[in-house]
């Protein structure tokens, strides 16, 4: 390599660093820094009125799964915590499934409209997104509570005598989350279906596949990146959801988000809250890893 090339290369590297410096600075201060603080706090001892005392302790992490008996100090598995984790994962998976089942036909419908009308349909799908999350959640509350719209209609129509109790159940949380996160499923699915070559449908039918065969063997494999992206986009915020389970689930049907908030509020156990936050982050990272794997799968086969 010539000297001129060397110099050009060095100059390129220098300007590259300079240009990325602001981004790196923000990432350090705004992302890595706070995360590091959270990680450190999870290994400290809770203070009497919140905050932390600088004594290194594993109690925060132990508290994730166990409770210490106040009398003899023995550890017992904290079933209440496990129930919260399980509910969080289960409700998030169910939310993902529901948004997919509703979102896939919706996205297909939009993608198969004439090109000039698709924008309108997409706009309609995203309208709720421009509204405050709290307001949307209270709107659902208004629909499903005992004397709300749904029960009034059903009773008015004579279909039921007593109101169905939905509010403050897991079902209510599920309905709320599915409603709130539906656009996050529809948009990536739409993008994937929009790229799908509709002529392949005819090829599938021509080669003796029925409707189900075409769906299973042609459509789903080809829109898989959209399915995975939509599922991650719904699953991750569902898992950390705070407002929806708080408003629609009542105090009892907690999810991880509420549980973390409890530790930093009334619980005054910041290390436990920090440990739970890190755990949540780990689960989300695992989910993202699945996503990266699933989407690069095809690229690998090209090699």
């Amino acid at each position, binding site marked *: 390599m010539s000297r001129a090339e060397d110099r050009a290369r060095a100059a390129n590297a220098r300007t590259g660093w300079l240009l990325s410096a602001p981004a790196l600075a923000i990432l350090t201060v705004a992302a890595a820094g706070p995360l590091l603080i959270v990680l450190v706090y999870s290994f400290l001892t809770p203070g009497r009125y919140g905050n932390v005392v600088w004594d290194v302790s594993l109690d925060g992490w132990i508290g994730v799964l166990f409770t210490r008996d106040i009398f003899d100090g023995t550890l017992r598995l904290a079933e209440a915590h496990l129930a919260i984790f399980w509910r969080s994962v289960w409700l998030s998976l169910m939310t993902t499934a529901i948004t997919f089942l509703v979102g896939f036909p919706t996205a297909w419908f939009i993608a198969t409209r004439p090109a000039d009308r698709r924008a309108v349909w997409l706009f309609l799908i995203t309208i709720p997104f421009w509204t405050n999350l709290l307001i949307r959640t209270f709107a659902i509350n208004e629909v499903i509570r005992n004397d709300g719209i749904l029960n009034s209609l059903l009773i008015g129509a004579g279909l039921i005598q007593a109101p169905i109790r939905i509010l403050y159940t897991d079902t209510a949380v599920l309905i709320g989350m599915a409603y709130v996160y539906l656009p996050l499923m529809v948009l990536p699915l739409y993008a994937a279906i929009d790229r799908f070559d509709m002529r*392949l449908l*005819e090829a599938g*039918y021509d*080669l*003796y596949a029925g409707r189900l065969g075409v769906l299973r*063997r042609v459509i789903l494999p080809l829109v898989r990146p959209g399915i995975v992206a939509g599922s991650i986009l719904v699953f991750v915020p569902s898992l950390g959801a705070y407002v929806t389970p708080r408003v629609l689930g009542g105090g009892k049907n907690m999810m991880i988000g509420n549980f973390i908030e409890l530790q930093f509020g009334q619980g005054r156990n910041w290390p436990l809250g920090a440990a739970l936050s890190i755990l949540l982050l780990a689960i989300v990272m695992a989910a993202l890893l699945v996503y990266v794997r699933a989407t690069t799968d*095809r690229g690998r086969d090209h090699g």
Partner: protein
Amino acid sequence: MTDVAVEVQGAVKAFGQGGAALRALDGVSVAIRKGEFFTLLGPSGCGKTTLLRLIAGFETPTEGRILLDGQDITDLPPNRRPVNTVFQSYALFPHLTVAQNVAFGLEMLGRPRAEVAARTERMIALVRLEALAGRRIAQMSGGQQQRVALARALAPQPKVLLLDEPLSALDLKLRKEMQIELKRLQHETGITFVFVTHDQEEALTMSDRIAVMAAGGIRQIGAPREIYTRPADRFVAGFIGESNFLPATIEGGRATLAAGVTVEVEDAGPRAGAVTLAVRPEQVRVVPADEPGALAASVRDLVYFGTDTNCHLTLPDGTEVVARIQSRPSGEPGLAPGDRVGLRLAPGAARILAD
């Protein structure tokens, strides 16, 4: 009628409703024989692809019936018709390998695994892609994709193979190769091929029979030689190859051209009066201007294209005539625009057209 593979009876296909409906097919009837290479030829918008899609089952006829081996399949969906299609865009499955694409139809038919594997391998060998069986579609060239599409459509052993302008995306050289390849495949498999094209040369070189279509109807059905030498009407004469159209008067089996020269016509019959004669450019001879019995003409333009030179001539009454003369070894035409020459028509070259 056991030798008929596909029979279309009075097929009408209208798109849209009521008065605004567009009649893509307007009462088409055709019988395609078993094992033949049958071509639907016509300009774009003539309804040839619609007819193919009707046979495939992607469209339902507004009126009329479609029979396959004598059985009415008009109401069968495409996945229940023993007919396969090679699409213009190939429509190969991008998420599958070559072998998986070829196996798709057999798998959907629920054939045993061993049979699927064996037949897939044989089909890939038939189109000479053995080395690429594990490749993805995106890694293949246009010509290779074409072969995969053929193997995929032939694998389930359809009774009829439909080909929708399959060669139009290939460059000239590859297209010539694939023409030969297609004929070989048809010969080896014995399957009836229904081939759609707008390329008359392709139709002439490959087909056993051709149906020339225009404006939603069939104008003429016949062997390539028959269609070229005896076009049924002015459209066919103009669409298949080139034709000179000369106004003439028929009397007593002889035609008198407007310029006053008489020529022999074969099929004049008892007809008399004004007609149009069609003469192929290669049947027009350019002779010295003073040759007796020749039509006087002047050279307007010369268009050289390798093997031949098209000589555009003007008759005294203004009629344009094209004569195709074989190029000389030197490449020089021996004529120049403005030259006065004589014209002669080869014996039997003039055909009377039914307008």
